[in-house]
Every structure is written in structure tokens, then in C-alpha cells.
């Protein structure tokens, strides 16, 4: 499918987005733009609607009003065929992995290929093994089932599956949540490595201050249903509003900042 958008057009454009659950307002006229090739992070307190925003961007949930354009396609009233075509252009890594428990890791990674590409089993396994190696997992892990993996390995395997179809856009939901510092650091490295492959746009939701300081090109702060500000962490650190201060003040915020500076 030819890409109708020029190379410098935004990958994701969200305008006037509103979401409500009953009386509870999640998003009120939210606007956001993600540029091609950047690592974009969405942060916000719990209940600020960042997970809902992610679900709306990946067609798992519909907003009440407003428009979302991803890779040049308007998600509103999208046909089933167009939705399928779009889904094959992005990859999603879920917070808990979302790997299928009934399949081995290698089968999980190969599943999108088996479903959507006309490849024989050997070719599928070869590509899956390559993605597995890309995420730094040992080849033996491929034969294991998700329940046998540690948290960090699960996230890597999930990332390998998200990369199976060589997406242009990658969504990461809390890539380091629930990991020990060492595994979290390895995921940092992995995201950095992916960025260096070029062309890939990464959108992530995270609480991880180290990840934000070291990797995110731009960060959007979500609060009260709106984007309160967008910019690099250094820019956001200058803003004196309380919604921002909690990410920068306090011992953890300052420690992450210093670690980022010292590198």
C-alpha cells in the first residue's frame, strides 16, 4: 500500500479528542502530535487516561469525539479491511506481554507472519528466530512457553513479536514496569538499539524516569484530560506547574536527572 503522507508528516495526529466513561471524563479536547522517527513518551498519574489514549491509538477502543489519524489514516469509521492493513503497519508490546500461553515463544513471534504473510513454516521460523535474537534472547528460549519466562524475558519476547512484521510504528505499554533494575536497563538498551535501526517511530507509556531522561525525544504530560505540555525532559523540567513538578522533584526524579546528565 503506498503511503499517502509525505515523509515529514506527523505519524500520529490527535485533535479534539474526548473520552468519557459514564460521567467520568477521561479526555477533554486533547490534542497531540507524534513526529516520524522520534521516541515519544506519554506520562501522567494513574487515572490520567494515558492507557486509554494508547488503546484508542491502536484501535482497541473508540473515543466519544475527536479525530485520531495514525500513519495518515483516520481511525474514525475505518473499514475492517483498512483496519487490518493498518494493524499490520504497527506493533504493540503489552504491559504484561500479551503472549499466547498455548504457543511457544517462537510460535508466538511467528504467528503474525503465519497469519498475514505467505511464507512456509521454515521461513516463518527463520524470521522469528531472527527477531528473537534481535531482542537479545537466547535461541533456546524460543522453545519455551510464556509461563516459563521471567518478566524481563516476557517483555523481550513480546517486543520480538511486535517487530515480526517490521512495523513503522511501535507502541510500548509500560516497557519497564515490574522489572528489576537490571532487566529494566536491558530494555532501555534494547529500545535504544531499535532507534538506531532508523525509520522506526516509538510511542511509549511509562513511569520510568530513567527511560524518560535517557531515551525520550519528546514527552507529553497528561493531566485533567488534556496534554499539559510537550517537550524534551530538559524543557519540561523548567516548567513550574505542580502537574510537572512531581516528575522532577523528589529524590527519584532528581536521581534520574543526575544519572542522565552524567552519561
Amino acid at each position: 500500500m503506498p503511503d499517502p503522507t509525505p515523509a515529514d508528516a506527523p505519524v500520529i495526529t490527535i485533535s479534539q479528542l474526548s473520552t468519557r466513561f459514564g460521567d467520568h471524563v477521561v479526555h477533554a479536547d486533547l490534542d497531540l502530535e507524534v513526529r516520524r522517527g522520534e521516541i515519544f513518551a506519554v506520562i501522567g498519574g494513574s487515572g490520567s487516561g494515558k492507557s486509554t489514549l494508547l488503546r484508542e491509538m491502536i484501535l482497541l477502543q473508540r473515543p466519544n469525539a475527536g479525530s485520531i489519524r495514525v500513519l495518515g489514516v483516520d481511525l474514525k469509521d475505518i473499514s475492517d479491511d483498512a483496519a487490518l492493513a493498518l494493524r499490520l503497519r504497527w506493533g504493540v508490546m503489552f504491559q504484561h506481554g500479551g503472549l499466547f500461553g498455548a504457543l511457544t515463544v517462537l510460535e508466538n513471534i511467528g504467528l503474525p507472519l503465519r497469519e498475514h504473510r505467505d511464507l512456509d513454516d521454515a521461513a516463518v521460523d527463520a524470521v522469528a528466530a531472527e527477531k528473537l535474537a534481535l531482542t537479545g534472547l537466547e535461541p533456546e528460549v524460543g522453545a519455551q512457553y510464556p509461563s516459563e519466562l521471567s518478566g524481563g524475558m516476557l517483555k523481550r519476547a513480546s517486543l520480538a513479536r511486535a517487530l515480526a512484521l517490521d512495523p513503522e510504528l511501535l507502541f510500548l505499554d509500560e516497557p519497564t514496569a515490574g522489572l528489576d533494575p537490571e532487566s529494566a536497563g536491558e530494555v532501555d538498551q534494547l529500545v535504544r538499539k531499535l532507534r538506531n535501526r532508523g525509520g522506526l517511530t516509538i510511542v511509549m507509556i511509562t513511569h520510568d524516569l530513567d527511560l524518560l531522561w535517557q531515551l525520550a525525544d519528546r514527552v507529553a504530560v497528561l493531566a485533567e484530560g488534556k496534554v499539559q505540555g510537550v517537550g524534551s525532559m530538559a524543557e519540561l523540567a523548567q516548567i513550574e506547574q505542580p502537574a510537572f513538578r512531581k516528575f522532577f522533584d523528589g529524590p527519584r526524579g532528581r536521581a534520574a536527572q543526575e544519572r542522565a546528565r552524567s552519561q
Partner: protein
Amino acid sequence: MLGSTMQAASTLANLGQLAVAIYEQTMALFGFIGECAAALAGSVAHPRRLRWRPILFNIRSAGFDALPIVGLLSFLLGIVVAFQGADQLRQYGANIFVADLVGISMLREFAPLITAIIIAGRSGSAYAAQIGTMAVTEEIDAMRTLGIQPLEMLVLPKIIGLLIALPLLTAFADICGVFGGMIMAQAKLGVGFAEFLDRFSKVVSVTSYLIGIGKAPVFAAIIAVIGCFQGMRTRGGADSVGRQTTRSVVQASFLVIVVDALFSIAFSVLDL
């Protein structure tokens, strides 16, 4: 006085909430049935999109693997029916009528019903638990984002598999139930196997058999749809999986018995 008024008001409020919840669930169920029907029609139009591996897997797990329990329980049911009838029949010297009793009641009613109830408890719950667990662990979401329709991957194979398996299981239950009745007839009434089968073939019409088998696909659809529906409605954590599983068994068993009663009325009106 005030206390009792408030209590009445809160009872009324609870009743209202319950009614709204039941209404909402019923509407959601109709929506789900519609989605399944549309997906099924789509699969019939494009048979290559049907997923045969999970269908065959479901026929094995819901059908073949259930043979021992279905066989044993319907065998016992046949014994009980013959045993209960034996005393009454002997009083009138109508021993041979045990073949009528066992044959017609097993083939028309008991075999389809006991099979459906066992499968509702065994497979309906498994469907709800499997899909519910996948919903909790984000596997359903992951499936959608990978461009695989959960309905085509998870729900249709279960419905189609059970539509094939349950009539076969019912036929097996017929055989085991009648066999149980035969053993009891010989033990308590002195009716030999040859005598029993001779009478059986004369009085039990093919219609009785077909009516029993004909109910099975309807029960299969109820069990599979309710199980998958309750699984898909799982939200939140692991406790929700248990709740939805329980619901699927209760609702499927309930609906199977209600529909069986409706069948009885319909057949008597139709003179079958």
C-alpha cells in the same frame, strides 16, 4: 417506621439495579449472537478462512474426551429409569414394557439432556475460563492488534466443534443409556437382551431418536455461545474469571432445560 421505609426503598433500588443489569446483559448477549452469526456467515461464504485445527481440537476435547463421563452417567441413568419403572410394571405384569419406558425416555429426553448438562459443566465452563483468562492477560487485545479476529480464532471453532460433537455424544449416550436399562431389565424383570431389543425395535420409532439427536445442535449452540460470551465479558482480574465461569455454567444449564421444555411443548403441539 422510617427504618422500614428506607429498607423498602433500598430493596426497590436493588431490584431496579438487578433489572437493569439483566437487561444490559441480555442485550449484550443478543449483540454477541449477532456478531457470531455474522462471523459464521462470513466463514461459510469463505470456507478457507475457517480454522480447522482449533475446530478439530475442540471436537476432541469437548467430544472424544467426554465419552467416558457421558457414557458412564447415561448408563447409570438408564439403570435408574429401569429400576424405578420395574416395580410398577411388575405389579401389572407388564414387564416387557420396560423397553418402551427406557427406549423412549432415554432417546427423546434423558440422553440429550444429561449430555448437554455434562458438557455445559465440562466444556462451557472451560470455554469461559479459557477466553476469560486470555482477556485478563491481554491476549485478546494482542490478538486484535495482530489482525486476528478473536471471534474467528476463539469463538467460531468452539461453536462449530460443539455443533459436531454434541449430537455424536448424544447418540453415544443413547446407546449407553439403553444398555443400562437392558441390564436392569434382565436383573429385576427377567427380560432378556434379545427380548428387550426385539420389543425396542418395534415400539421405539426413528422419530424418537431423531427428536433427541435434533435437540443436540441447539443445546450445543447454547452452551458454546454462553460460554464464549461470558468469557468475553471478563474484566479486571483473576476473580472475574471465576465469576464468569460460574455464570456460564449456571446460565447454560438453565437455558438448556428451559429450551428442552419449550421443545416438549412444541413437539406435543406438532403431535410428534
